């Protein structure tokens, strides 16, 4: 009588063998390559200052978008906004917006202990995101410092 221990590998049905091999392969991949998860940077503590900065930015958002569309304000490559034509309204809106952005950036750097280069990296990340989100016709500053009008 044939016992289970007498069954050789080649006698195991093909599907079973295949699933076993796949499991081993998957395990090997997991061990060989570290999980590709992006690090989680976030507000570890939502302070009143951060809350107010976010609320201010939300309240100002529509106004800021209109000024960007009109070409009076542009997104620079440091993650802040810049006046492009010295319009009085644009000057005050840009100044307030930059103050609130600074609060948010500093909070991210401090709460995620990003080190001495952390502010530069945070600014760079936000600048890239702002560039990507900019609508056609808005002015953005490239990494090399040139101001361009986004086409699409």
């Amino acid at each position, binding site marked *: 009588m044939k016992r289970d221990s007498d069954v050789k590998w080649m006698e195991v049905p093909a599907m079973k063998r295949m699933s076993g091999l796949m499991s081993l392969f998957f395990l090997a991949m997991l061990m060989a390559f570290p999980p590709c998860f992006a690090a989680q940077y976030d507000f570890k503590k939502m302070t009143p200052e951060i809350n107010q900065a976010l609320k201010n930015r*939300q309240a100002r958002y529509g106004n800021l*978008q209109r000024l960007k569309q009109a070409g009076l304000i542009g997104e620079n490559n440091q993650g802040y906004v810049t006046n492009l034509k010295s319009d009085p309204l644009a000057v005050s809106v840009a100044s307030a917006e930059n103050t609130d952005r600074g609060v948010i950036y500093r909070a991210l750097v401090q709460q995620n202990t*990003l080190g001495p280069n952390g502010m530069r*990296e945070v600014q760079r990340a*936000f600048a890239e995101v702002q560039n990507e989100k900019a609508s056609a016709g808005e002015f953005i500053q490239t990494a090399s410092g040139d101001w361009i009008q986004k086409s699409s």
Partner: protein
Amino acid sequence: MKKSKKMINVFIALLLVTGCTVKAVGDPNRPITINANVVVDIRGLKQTATNIEDMVAQGGAK
């Protein structure tokens, strides 16, 4: 021979998984200064930036 090869492979795999330990030797009374370079994951930062900007835009659109 097959069994010993298997054992060697298991041992190498364990070694890779375990990693290595660093032992500091010196005067126990002397303060230790550690200089650490923080590596920032730009992908993670961009994700955070995207989330924050989306929240601002959604809140501003109301």
